[in-house]
């Protein structure tokens, strides 16, 4: 049995990643799950949070907003509603998006628009959190 996991991260917009990794940490509905090679077949529903993968000494972090995880014979597939690499998060843009979402949420006339804005806000807050933590951890390395 190979001692590597082959990981695919696919968001609804694109295939983000396809590579060999040593470990994957995902935010499942019931808490964070760590996947190591040789893991039993698993299908889990994911929450919004950070997806962390380790490959050698390198760590990579993604911010994902919900989705599904499939583990099958060392093939790990993450189907995320949306996903972004922590390094690719543009803090200024996200701050702006957050403000916009907050503005939009003040208008409570349409329930649908409100929900959309709420989802945007939640996504923005998550991305900010991930990006900021990422900054700190790079300093620590």
């Amino acid at each position, binding site marked *: 049995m190979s001692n590597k996991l082959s990981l*695919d991260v*696919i*968001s*609804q*917009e*694109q*295939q983000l990643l396809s590579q060999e990794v040593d470990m994957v940490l995902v935010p*499942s*509905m*019931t808490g964070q*799950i760590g996947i190591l090679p040789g893991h*039993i*077949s*698993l*299908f*889990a*529903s994911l929450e919004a949070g950070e997806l962390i993968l380790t490959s050698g000494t390198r760590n990579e972090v993604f911010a994902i907003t919900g989705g*599904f995880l*499939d583990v*099958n*014979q060392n093939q790990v*597939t993450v*189907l995320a509603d949306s996903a972004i690499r922590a390094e690719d998060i543009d803090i200024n843009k996200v701050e702006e998006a957050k403000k916009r979402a907050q503005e939009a949420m003040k208008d409570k006339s349409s329930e649908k628009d409100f929900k959309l804005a709420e989802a945007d806000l939640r996504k923005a807050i998550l991305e900010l959190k991930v990006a900021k933590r990422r900054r700190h951890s790079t300093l620590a390395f």
Partner: protein
Amino acid sequence: MSSTKIIKRRIKSATNISQITKAMEMVAASKMRFAQESALSSRPYTEKMRQILTGIIEIVKDDVSHFLLATPSPTLNSKEEAQEKYLVVVLSSDKGLCGGLNSNLYRGLELWQRSFTQKKTNLKNIKMDFVTVGKKAKEHVLKTQRFLLAEFSNYGDKPRYSDIIPLYNIILESFKTGQYQKIFIVFMEFVSTIAQRLTVRQLLPIEKADIDTSFDEIMKGEESKYVKFEFHKDYIFEPGAETIFDQLLPKYLGLYLYHVVLESTASEHSARMVAMKNAHDNATEIVKDLSLEYNQLRQQKITSELLDAFSARMVM
């Protein structure tokens, strides 16, 4: 004199056609780029989800029941005979002028329906109802006197996920109530700018067996790789399988429908661009031929006039 006039008029109209088709080609090309991009970018997600889903459904089908996985039992008609009813979702373009796209779709639909009913001769009572997306499909279904359950059009060039929600609801609702045993979807899948392929897929119930009924040999080749994809017998579901299926299946259905709409839009614009390009090329060719003919005639006229003048002079 009159023949040159006619030719001149024909040159003018052919030039007009070539200009119009050129413009339409440009428009289609720019729409096509967007449509192709969105179709191709949503493909990995949908395909992967399909692959995983059909795989795990095979494993858990004995333990988990979900209404999207089971075939509702057929209703009995007045003579107490079981009658199977199928719903077919057909996607076409709203507008014409896109080459053989829609006629290929109609032909494929007829062929598929015939071969399907022949295969199931033991079931004499098959009724197919239709839901159409796009005006052309609606026209075809009505012209061939079939039952049209619902019709959607004007999705535009950039369909959004929220646009397909009514379609999704009608499909889910009519399946949930047990009105239909199976739901199929027929559309033109985008292969490349110059090729679109008719695809027929079983939408509901979601199952691995005969999930694909494509005529195309290439498709079969592609499909076989999913079969090779083996799934381990013991699967853990986190949280429980029921909860996951409750979430995953409706979501998959919605995403799949959206993806199919995107594919069909990409096919439409690609087909239109190619059709308009061909029309433009043909019109240009005609203008060239006609100009040659016109010039020949003109020269002939001049020559005969000159001859007249010379012969008149010689007589004097």
